[in-house]
């Protein structure tokens, strides 16, 4: 895995203040997304995985640490340049209902990304948008329809078309299929895989579902309580999970679980990690967070 990385975060920290209490969503996360790969980020809700994705595309700012696109630190750039760099990062949202404007035709919504990318002729934009619609498996003549005329799966296809319109190289997908039926999930995942191969996209794929992650991802990063506890090639992490939390996540999936013996799952105590714990390499590209002192 010596491909260059297009997106990297370094020692990212983020805390929220809620009702006088400080909630630490990210506790020093470092990650690299290589060109053309799919990196799956998995963890329970509240583990900080969505916050990570939002910071990566610029919807949130980190409390500390840095985000780099093609090795360039975004914090060091002027706001205008930063916006321009961030245009190469687009996002697919979880809820295909609230992520589309109910009062704008889908053609317009997809076309807006082209407009801000410099195209100004709506006829030319329409042409590109119709091509995109067709590419994501919809019909050209759906251009002038409104979101409420589509099903959840179709809406997610529209959201994918919208994310692709500005010509991104990095796509952050935040639980893109968790709101969909299982049968539709597979179609959307296949579409995402095809588009990736076609347009050399890199995906940061955020999910809580190990089965979905296993299907699409080259590498997996496991997050727990704002820390990265294990990262490595998908096969290696699934077959030889080293962190107790990863094992727990895998046990929860019947397909990978070790429950087929009928034995009851043993309750595991998860280690409380501190700031001085370090990621230890246990195999090629496979690292796990070890508690210092244990």
């Amino acid at each position, binding site marked *: 895995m010596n491909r260059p990385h297009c997106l990297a975060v370094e020692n990212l920290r983020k805390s929220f203040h809620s009702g006088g209490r400080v909630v630490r969503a990210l506790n020093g996360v470092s990650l690299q997304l290589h060109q053309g790969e799919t990196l799956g980020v998995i963890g329970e809700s509240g583990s900080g995985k969505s916050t990570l994705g939002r910071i990566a595309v610029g919807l949130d700012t980190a409390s500390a640490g840095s985000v780099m696109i093609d090795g360039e630190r975004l914090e060091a750039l002027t706001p205008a340049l930063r916006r321009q760099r961030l245009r190469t990062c687009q996002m697919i949202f979880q809820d295909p209902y609230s992520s589309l404007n109910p009062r704008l035709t889908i053609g317009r919504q997809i076309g807006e990304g082209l407009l801000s990318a410099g195209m100004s002729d709506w006829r030319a934009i329409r042409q590109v948008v119709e091509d995109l619609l067709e590419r994501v498996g919809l019909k050209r003549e759906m251009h002038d329809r409104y979101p409420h*005329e589509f099903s959840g799966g179709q809406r997610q296809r529209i959201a994918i078309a919208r994310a692709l319109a500005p010509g991104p190289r990095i796509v952050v997908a935040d639980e893109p299929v968790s709101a969909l039926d299982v049968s539709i999930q597979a179609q959307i995942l296949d579409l995402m895989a095809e588009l990736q191969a076609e347009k050399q996209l890199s995906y940061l794929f955020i999910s809580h579902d190990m089965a979905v992650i296993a299907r699409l991802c080259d590498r997996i990063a496991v997050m727990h309580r704002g820390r990265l506890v294990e990262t490595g090639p998908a096969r290696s992490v699934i077959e030889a999970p080293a962190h107790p939390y990863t094992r727990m996540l895998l046990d929860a999936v019947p397909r990978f679980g070790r429950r087929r013996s009928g034995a009851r799952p043993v309750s595991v105590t998860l280690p409380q990690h501190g700031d001085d714990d370090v990621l230890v390499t246990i195999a090629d590209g496979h690292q796990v967070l070890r508690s210092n002192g244990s």
Partner: protein
Amino acid sequence: MTVLSQTVPRRPRVSPTVLLGLGLATIIVLASLLAPMLAPFDPLRMAAGPRLAAPSLAHLFGTDEFGRDLFSRVLAGGRLSLGIGISAVVSGLLVGGVVGLAAAFGGRLTEAVLLRVIDVLYSFPDTLIALALVAFLGPGIENATLAIAISLVPFYARVTYGLAAAERSKPYIEAARLAGIRSGRLVRVHVMPNIGQSLVVMATLGFSSAILSAAGLSFLGLGVQPPSPEWGAILASGRNYITKAPWILIFPGLAICLTVLSFNLIGDSLRDLADPRRKARS
């Protein structure tokens, strides 16, 4: 692939209250618009009948202390009251809307400053603000309208900000931002169409409060000046005759009451229709 039709809007059930409100409002608006044709007398003409005459066929609402026909005066007063209400609401909504949108989309500092100012102004009752402004600007119909418009600005700014801020954090706005759309276009293309409906509802509710303020100011002698037949002004001039000729107070009072009631009924029903909690996700 089938196109789902689950969110085709169902025809809303029309409730009797909204029909009552609409009916009343239609009568009031039509009567005010057609006042010059409907009124049997010139509303300013003195001695159109005997002084302080009780309602009769010749003078439907009776006459006042100068013998002016009250029916004609109340009709003509409707034009003034509705006119003041509409101009005040439209200008208040425009200014308040711009302030509210600026607070929601103008960055953190603008938001903090504007919200504090709005909150301070909003904590005073509208009528009090209008009163203070008229005291400063001087009485008269234009100044009263301006004062009422200004007094409505904090309310509309607050409401617009609330709606826009709720919209701001929705994923479709975030997606549009990611696509590189700047705030101006974002507000125009994405936010306005989605909050416009709710703003119209708020305008309807503000309208009745504007009419009340106008009547209140005129009653205090700060708004429309006699002999112009504004409802509040008629009430003020008739208050000395409350025992001898109660009709001078009853009819304009009823007019104010029914106007406010009808617009409140319409506003409330519209609000229920526009309430996102009552709507299916679209």
